[in-house]
């Protein structure tokens, strides 16, 4: 199972702007995996959107879902 991750703002300095990961069951597992790969992420504040909807509880992931990592917005 492939999930596509798009990354924005300050987080791109850590992870680059896209990632593809396999075998991630849900958003909690995703965060663990990301923290494993990029230990400094632990200090970063960000929200997660699954298919452009912001989520705030653990959410199961499906094949070809698009996940976005969104640090605090700073438009305007």
């Amino acid at each position, binding site marked *: 199972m492939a999930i596509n991750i*798009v990354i*924005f*703002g300050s987080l791109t300095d850590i992870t680059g702007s896209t990632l593809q990961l396999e075998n991630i069951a849900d958003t909690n597992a995703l965060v663990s995996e990301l923290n494993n790969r990029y230990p400094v992420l632990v200090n970063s504040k960000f929200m997660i959107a699954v298919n*452009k909807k912001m989520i705030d509880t653990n959410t199961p992931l499906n094949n070809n879902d698009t996940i976005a990592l969104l640090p605090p*917005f*700073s438009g*305007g």
Partner: protein
Amino acid sequence: MERKPKNIFVQGAIEAVFIADSIQKHSSKTNIGGHSIFLGQVRADKIDEKEVVAIEYTAYEEMALEKMHVIREEIFAKYNLTCMHVHHSLGKVSAGEICLFVFTSSAHRKAAMEACNELVERIKAELPIWGKELFADESHQWKINQ
């Protein structure tokens, strides 16, 4: 009335002549009594002796446009507006240039003014857009909205 999502994004700075054209277009709408406009301009902030020379904006465009569509509908439902226009820069905008243009119009001034203020607050808080403050020495720092 159903409105379609509009593209709010502009590449680079928003020019004064673009703003003038937008104002001029409203002269045929003779039911308008007041326009309220907010313009965001890039500040040359000094941070530890280094000066911001530009901000580079990126956005999660699709999500921003969907969210903006929701905000637009909510503002139209809440205020008695004739029109509403929002433009936000993407890419590099130099210090002194305009990066945000919010424009509301109504028969009586109060609706336009209140809607404009609320739009600016919501755009800053709710749209997935990020500003990267660029310094002359090519280092950068990510903008934080207060």
